[in-house]
């Protein structure tokens, strides 16, 4: 099972069917009637659009696929078969080991404390050549040594994570996520020297993930002032970061020959690619096109992934209740992390229940017309977690299911 993410055949004259929801969703619905709910659909045209739009936005720098935003093995494989994508950013070491079976460039995006997996990695030359671990402190190096001492193991490739949050003096405080203690060029250089002085480690990369730029919505029509503020903040943060990161990269490069410097996020492909110190960009959530990105200014991903639930009861005439709930995306919990009902149009969740239970009541313009057995389509806020609710995605192209792709979960791989 594999799909190809490069179009062949004639170019479409109606470029983006999803821009006409009245046609797009009913067609998706019709194509998948044979599949029971809960069902996940991947629209191949939309996925292609997103995949190639990201390459374009990356401005010529290769994209490292952030697997947590996908969690479908064959989609990852088909991305890597597409020019413009190179390597993956995995989220756990067991996942990385599983992927490294046939992917030769796997960076683990977060420090790991999994002794068993570390021992496996350290005792297998092939795995050790393919996998790079994320580190930001000496303790993590010590932990690895404690699993298997340097003289009894393969050399471990490591990537130094640099913190790119913007620590402002004023009332804003720290803008960005709390990731690494390494904040200045001097910190980075000092830690780099420690790594290269320790036997059994090889410093091959550096990472600086711009959560505050990539992950902030900056163009919400109903919140103009806030959006303008976000854009101001992003601009300031980008200029602060570009300078600090360039210094840090230069400092680390004096110590080690880096194979890659990773920056990124779907929301920041343009600005990250414009930074000369970065050699590759990690991104993933733009691929499935969660609705989070509907409110970004410089790009509009297509709704490649969506899911449908069935109406099972009508507690009131104006309310339709679906079987299935949860489906909440990562990030600071809030309404913007909930899935969004997109078809039929005009449905909203009930304020006192929302989507948190295993059933989800809906009200709104269209709810009265819904009957048990009808289906409602949703889009997920971000991307990868959606795969944790499904065993497989039905791939729809040209109005029909052309393939069924198991998710990590469907393959029995619930990594995190």
């Amino acid at each position, binding site marked *: 099972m594999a799909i190809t*993410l*490069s*179009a*062949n*055949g*004639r*170019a*479409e*004259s*109606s*470029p*983006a069917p999803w*821009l006409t929801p009245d046609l797009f969703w009913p067609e998706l619905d019709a194509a998948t009637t044979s599949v029971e709910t809960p069902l996940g659909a991947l629209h191949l*045209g939309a996925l*292609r*659009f997103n*995949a*190639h*739009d990201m*390459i*374009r*936005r990356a*401005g*010529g720098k290769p994209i490292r696929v952030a697997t947590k935003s996908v969690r479908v093995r064959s989609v990852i494989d088909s991305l890597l078969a*597409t*020019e*413009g994508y190179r390597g993956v950013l995995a989220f756990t070491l067991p996942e990385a080991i599983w992927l490294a079976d046939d992917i030769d460039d796997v960076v683990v995006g977060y420090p790991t404390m999994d002794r068993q997996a570390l021992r496996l990695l350290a005792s297998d030359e092939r795995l050790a050549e393919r996998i790079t671990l994320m580190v930001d402190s000496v303790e993590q190096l010590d932990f690895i040594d404690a699993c298997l001492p340097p003289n009894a193991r393969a050399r471990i490739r490591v990537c130094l994570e640099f913190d790119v949050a913007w620590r402002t003096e004023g009332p804003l405080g720290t803008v960005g996520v709390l990731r690494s203690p390494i904040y200045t060029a001097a910190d980075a250089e000092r830690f780099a020297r420690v790594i290269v002085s320790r036997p059994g480690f090889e410093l091959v990369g550096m990472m600086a993930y711009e959560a505050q730029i990539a992950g902030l919505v900056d163009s919400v029509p109903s919140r103009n002032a806030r959006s303008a503020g976000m854009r101001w903040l992003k601009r300031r943060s980008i200029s602060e970061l570009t300078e600090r990161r360039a210094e840090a990269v230069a400092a680390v490069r004096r110590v080690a020959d880096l194979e890659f410097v990773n920056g990124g996020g779907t929301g920041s492909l343009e600005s990250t690619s414009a930074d000369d110190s970065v050699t590759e960009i990690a991104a993933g959530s733009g691929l499935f096109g969660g609705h989070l990105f509907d409110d970004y200014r*410089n*790009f*509009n991903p297509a709704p490649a992934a969506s899911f449908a639930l069935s109406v099972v009861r009508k507690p009131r005439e104006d309310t339709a209740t679906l079987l299935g709930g949860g489906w909440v995306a990562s990030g600071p919990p809030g309404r913007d992390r909930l899935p969004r009902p997109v078809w039929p149009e005009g449905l909203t969740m009930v304020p006192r229940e929302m989507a948190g239970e295993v059933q989800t009541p809906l009200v709104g313009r269209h709810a009265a017309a819904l009957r048990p057995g009808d289906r409602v389509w949703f889009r997920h806020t971000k991307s990868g977690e959606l795969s944790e609710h499904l065993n497989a995605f039905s791939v729809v192209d040209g109005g029909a299911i052309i393939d069924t792709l198991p998710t990590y979960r469907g393959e029995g791989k619930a990594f995190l």
Partner: protein
Amino acid sequence: MTATGAMWHNWARTEKVMPLRVERPRTTAALQRAVRAAAGSGIRIKAIGAGHSFTGIAVAPGIQLELEDLSGLSGEPTADGLVTLFAGTRLHDIPRLLAPYGLAMENLGDIAAQSISGAISTGTHGTGAGFGGIAGQVRGVVMVTASGDLLEISRESHADLLPGVALGLGALGIIAEVTIQCVPRFVLHAVEQPEPLDDVLDTVLDRAAAADHFEFYWFPHTRTALTKTNTRLPFGTKPKPLGRVSRFVDDTVLANGVYRVTCATAVVVPAIIPRVNLLADKLTGNRTFTDVSHRVFTTRRTVKFREMEYGIPAELVPAAVRDIEALIEQKGWRISFPLEVRFAAADDLWLSTAYGRATGYIAVHKYYRERSSAYFSAVESILRGYGGRPHWGKIHTQDAADLAEIYPHFGDFLAARDRLDPRRLFSNQYLERVLGI
């Protein structure tokens, strides 16, 4: 840079579209990335120039490329006057770019708003029985192909494609650079005068042959032709430009001021058109002046109109004009814009309206608010009867089957298209109509 959500329309407001995405690449590499992204996702992509085509030829519902930022000279001109320009360069910027090298474009149309790529892609031409259209000056292009690769086409490399891509309707690839043959700069001596239409029609071929650049306008409902005869003189000849107030026959004929008002009135009261035309006729006197070439060739058009133009064998021009005159008379139509008649030398570009024959152009116009269908289609059938070939950037109703009959190399062009763009990445509805799916 990218933008979305804005409506695009062409100059004449005959076409509009909201593209999925608008891109303004600043480098050839960014242009290539745009094409690759489009190709990879199977979405059509199209460059627009200045949007001055009257047809839907530049309509891009998928990805619309604006090439304004890919503009200017690429390298220095060669000693023999070969000039390479980036695709988005506007014609009105070219004189300034060429001035330091003492060069000029050999001939121009009557406005200079177009991009060099748009102008050559649709066969934009001026007048002059001894000169070809702008595409005839093309000696090479660098094109982004459907795979996103760069293809250089010149007399030295892939020369077999040059007669196709030099006037390629935007159907074969996205042009990144155009090399044109320029000439030492020169001045033009212009003589404009009203003359009896019949005399002009009787002698027009000789006059066109004798002059460097000859053209005339005829206002329906009058018996007068306004002739314009330009003679090329060496640079350095003392210029005698027109003052600001009395610039040009076009100002009165097709462009600004008084005429805009008369047009607007004429829409409301068609009956007064003949009188308006007589007025325009009177307003135009004898004028002679001398100026650098591009200032004589081109004007600024601000009154919006719709235009249809056909190229026919030059010798058939008098007969065709007389047929149109009889048509208007017979139908009792009120026509507010003049006919414009121009000439061009034969060339060898596959889809050139002047392919293989000395050509006379007849253009008809309508104020943009007037409904044009009956007038245009009747004139169109007259001109088709004379073996006419429609201008690719102006209104016409021909389709691929019609066009295959009047272009001997139509099949070669289609073969080149199949080879360069088998997936029809660069197509749109207009191209499907005129070239086939």
